[in-house]
């Protein structure tokens, strides 16, 4: 499943559409501690987190996530939205809790 397919599936609201929409998602990855995410997130992950600050975007970019999914209605602060646009990172949003959001991605991947 590509990032674009995940967007098209319609479960997630698009906060920022970045580049790399044709990228294959390798799997969902859940973590809110940035250094843990940085050290353990596989490249190409759909990263599910509730942290929506600029540092989340830096970690997503540097650890090479396919996209960010902000769960539980978390949103990007103003700085972070600017950064997302600048770095062309796809950020999605959902009211679902982290587990449910990750499970949704997982089900698509293994459908």
């Amino acid at each position, binding site marked *: 499943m590509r990032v674009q397919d995940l967007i098209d599936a319609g479960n997630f609201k698009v906060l920022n559409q970045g580049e790399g929409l044709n990228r294959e998602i390798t799997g969902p990855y859940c973590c809110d501690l940035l250094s843990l995410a*940085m050290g353990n997130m596989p490249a190409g992950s759909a990263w599910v987190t509730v942290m929506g600050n600029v*540092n989340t975007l*830096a970690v997503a*970019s*540097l650890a*090479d996530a396919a996209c960010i999914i902000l769960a539980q209605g978390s949103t990007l602060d103003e700085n972070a939205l600017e950064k997302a646009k600048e*770095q062309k990172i796809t950020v999605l949003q959902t009211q679902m809790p982290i587990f449910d959001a990750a499970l949704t991605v997982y089900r698509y991947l293994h459908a």
Partner: protein
Amino acid sequence: MKDTEDKITLFYKIPGNDFTRAGEASSNVKSKLKMMGVRPDIVRKVAIAMYEGEINMVIHASGGTIEVIISPEEIEMILKDQGPGIEDIELAMTAGYSTAPDNIRNLGFGAGMGLPNMKKYTDEMSVESQVGIGTTVTMKVKII
């Protein structure tokens, strides 16, 4: 940028305590390496290790400097700061050890995994530190 025959050196000044800009140097290095055609897995290792070092300088040492030396064989990162220094380096390298205050933890940092990540993602790493003088972290990622 300074070019010799087969080496490129990049130099960055990292401002202290500015969390909105933290990571800019690492992002810049990442895109430069990508443009140079360095293998994506190597770029990712350098980006992760350098970001952790950059963040540490911002959080723990009020900023510093980073020099990145790119050669055909390896990428070397030298991170220097004049912060408080690290008293017990072995302890600081322990996974989960952190002295980061609560306001830093609220940003998602302070898991105590920075130095362990830097070690994990590089082929060579050394930390030299003197209390009251500063810290120098040198890391190398081999290309071949």
